[in-house]
Every structure is written in C-alpha cells, then in structure tokens.
C-alpha cells in the first residue's frame, strides 16, 4: 500500500457518562490508502459512525493519533478535504436543487458562473439534470440523497465520508444507488477516498476495496477484509461465487465479535 491518506494509531474515544466513562472506540489502528473505498461495518454501538466523525473532525479522539493527508483532521477540515453525506439528505429546503449543490462552492468563494457549471455537471452525473430548479420536497428520498451526494462532490474533496447514506431507502432503490455511486466514483478516476458506514454486509462487500469489521463495547476493529472482486462491479458481481464467499467472511467476522 502506498503512503496512507488516513492513519489511525492506537486511537480511542471515551465519552464522559453519568455512570462512569463510556469507551466508544478502543485502540484503533488502521491505515487507508488514497483512492480506496473502505466500508465500516458492525452492529449499532460499535462506534463506526464515531470513527467516521473522527476522520472528519466532527468529533475529536481522546487518545492516540490520527492523521489525514499527514495533517490533523482539524487542518484537513479547514483545507476543505471532506465531503460528507449523512443518512438523511439534509438539503436546505429554501434552496433549489442546484443551489443546494452550489452551497459548498458558495461558502468556498467560487465565482457564480463556475458554481453553476459545476453544479449542473454533477446533477447530470447523478441523473438529475432536469431537476436543478426544483425544490427538495418535490423529489423522492432516493433523488434527494443523490442531490446530497452531488453536493458532497461539488468541490472535489479528496475524502468523502458517507454515514449510512442508503440506510433509509428501500432495497431496490438501494441497489441502484450502489451501482450509481460506483459509477460516480469511477468517473472521478477513483482518486477520491470514500469512507462508507453501513450495516448491510452485501452493500459493504459490493462497494468496497476493504471492509472494516467492528464490534461493540468497547468499539474496536475485529478484522479488515480485503475485497478482491474485479472492478467495474456490475449486477452480475452480486451473483458471483466470490461475492458470496466474501459476504460469508464478513459475516463470520461480525459473529466473532
């Protein structure tokens, strides 16, 4: 593996609780390479979302060291290295779809024309070119989440953090969104590093280069499963014997916890 873009060394996160401190993450050591698609999977309470939030400097570790692009996560955030997609689309309802995608560009001071161009290009990429002037409430849940993804990618961040982005979608929409996500990621030459939090084993295996299997109380990394399925991954990938082997491997990793 080349120089890791994200490096955890013995990182821990302890919350002060009413009945004594609660260890959300214990002794995490993990390296993620540039352009890797990494899924974090585990039962609720295993700290997978917390791990993602540590990377994005939305929370701070209480022990160990965490480097992102050889910087602190805080510096990386100030350098606008992160695009974030939450489980809810979190669109600003007073803004049109296009204006939502332009939001980060506006904050980062891009000129209007460039903002518009970039937003339209991304909306085309996520298949919503005709919806730019619509308002969020006019879109279905899946479409809203695509807008959210377009917004996260609009300023070309080197790292995209996704916190169960398809968790609220039905199974059929979900698989289609997975295909689209891989297409979008490939369109960026797979230069973007993606950290993807999920509780779906097939989803993690289908999307990822590495699946980080976590277990709760305290949250820790059980196993890292490399996924050697060839890319581009397609519909048939989900039916290949190797896919099932890897799903089984991840599932066993989860059971050990």
């Amino acid at each position, binding site marked *: 593996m080349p120089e890791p873009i994200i490096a955890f060394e013995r990182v821990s996160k302890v919350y002060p609780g009413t009945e004594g401190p609660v260890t959300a993450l214990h002794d995490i050591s993990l390296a993620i390479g540039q352009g890797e698609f990494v899924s974090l999977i585990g039962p609720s309470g295993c700290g997978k979302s917390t791990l993602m939030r540590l990377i*994005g400097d*939305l929370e701070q570790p209480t022990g160990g060291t965490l480097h992102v692009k050889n910087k602190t996560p805080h510096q990386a*955030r*100030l*350098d*606008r290295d*992160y*695009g*974030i997609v*939450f489980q*809810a689309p*979190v669109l*600003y*309802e*007073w*803004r*049109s779809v296009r204006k939502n995608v332009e*939001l*980060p560009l*506006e*904050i*980062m001071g891009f000129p209007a024309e460039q903002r518009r161009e970039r937003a339209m290009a991304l909306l085309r990429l996520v298949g919503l070119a005709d919806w730019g*002037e*619509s*308002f969020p*409430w*006019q879109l279905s849940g899946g479409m809203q989440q695509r807008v959210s993804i377009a917004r996260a990618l609009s300023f070309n961040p080197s790292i995209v953090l996704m916190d169960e982005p398809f968790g609220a979608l039905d199974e059929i929409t979900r698989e289609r969104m997975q295909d689209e996500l891989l297409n979008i990621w490939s369109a960026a030459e797979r230069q973007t590093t993606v950290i993807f939090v999920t509780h779906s084993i097939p989803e993690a295996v289908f999307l990822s280069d590495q699946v980080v299997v976590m277990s709760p109380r305290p949250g820790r990394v059980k196993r890292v499963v490399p996924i050697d399925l060839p890319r581009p991954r397609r519909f048939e990938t989900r039916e290949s014997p190797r896919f099932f082997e890897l799903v089984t491997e991840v599932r066993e990793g989860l059971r050990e916890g």
Partner: protein
Amino acid sequence: MRAMSSSLILNPKSQIQNALPALVAFVLVLALWEAAVWLLGIPVYLLPAPSQIGQTFGERPAYLLQIGLATFRNALLGCAIGCGLGCLVAAVCVRWRPLADGLVPFAVASNAIPIIALSPLLGIWLGSVSSASKVAVVAVMTFFPTLVNVYRGLMSPSHDALQLMRSYAASQRDVFLKLRAPAALPFLFTALRICATLSMIGAVVAEFFGGPQNSLGVYIKSQAGILRTREAWSAILVACLLGIVFYAAVALVERRVVHWAGERR
C-alpha cells in the same frame, strides 16, 4: 419551479372554494344579527343592526378612516420597533447563549402576561396623550412573541445541517446567513402574523387610557360613553378592517418569501 408556477395559477381557485364556507357563515351571522335586532326590538344603544352601523359609517367615512389611520400608524410603528428589536435580540441570543438562557424563559412566560395592563404606566412615562406611549405599548407587546419565535427559528437547523456547515469550514457569518436566517423565516412570519393582530389590539386599547382626540380608541370610548353605539360600532368596524388589511398584507408577503413551505401548508 414547475410545480410552483402551476400552484400560483391553481391556488386562487381552490382558495375561493376553501373560503366559501367561511363567507357563507359570515353572511349568515350578519343576517341573523340584523333579523334579531328588528324582530326582538333590541334598542339601538344596546346593539345597533349591521345596516345601521354601515349607514353610520357611510355618513362620515373620511373622518373614520382618518382617525383609523392615525391609530394604525401607531400600530405599524410599534410593530416595526417591537419586531425589529425582537429579531435583533434573538440574533444576539444565538451568538451569546447565556443571554438566551436568561431571557427566553421570560419571553415565553410573557405570553401569559397581559402586557396591555402596562398601558397606563407607559402613559405616565411617555405622556398619556402622546403617540409615543401607544407606540411603546405595541412595541412591548410585539417584542416578546417575535423574540421567542425568531429565536426558535434560528435554533431550528438540525445537528446534521450544522455539521455540514462545519465540514465546509464555514464562517459564523455564513452559518448565520445561509442556514440559520433562512431557516428562521417561516418562524418570523408566524410571529409577524401574531404581531399584526396584537399591534392593532394594543394600539386601540392603549388609546382607551387616553390619547389624541382624533384616534380610534378615544373615539370608541367617548362615543360608547354617551351611548352613541352606532358611532362606536362604526369605528370598531374600521379597526377590524385595518386589522384584517395588516394581517393579509403580512400573509401575502409570507407566501412570496417563504415560497418553499407554501405547498405543504
């Protein structure tokens, strides 16, 4: 945008349909009132019939409107001051939470207080005949609901919406202008609609405790005092009309500004 423009075309029709029952009820009540006065022989000093009130209004509409507008001016000015200060303090509360913790509970509690009762005291401080005391009553009445509503609005963005801003390393100014302020707009208009009503009540009632001769409150009180109820009622009619106009104007601006919420209301 497509659905929005079509809604602008479709809405007036459905609005008339929606308003029809209320309109029928209104006409029905007026007819009952009129009939009751004549059939039961209610003396005019107790309750004049709607037709009599209308006739009295018709005799001197210019004067009634003139004193109405004098009162309305106080209501408008007081409302502007109260709502303006309410927004300002709400914004400061967001930046400086201890102020919010200290102030907002009282602002909420003030809903239960008849602020109008302060009116005679404000009269002592600012001159009982002056407009200033009436404007002050209205300003105090409208300040608290605006503060409470706008503060709630400014605090309404979800944790994730704020985290998103954080992930962009957005400045405090951007968080306020691009997230908190637009999120607070529907709350502001809720406050303004409440305040439109309150300010007309405040302005008229404040004048009951003394005010310039040519104002609605003074006119209603003095005419009622000498049992000229038709005159009093025709002034009340003007107060109602102005109150409705104020409210409708706010609602109209709201539909324009808070367009994204229009479809779901």
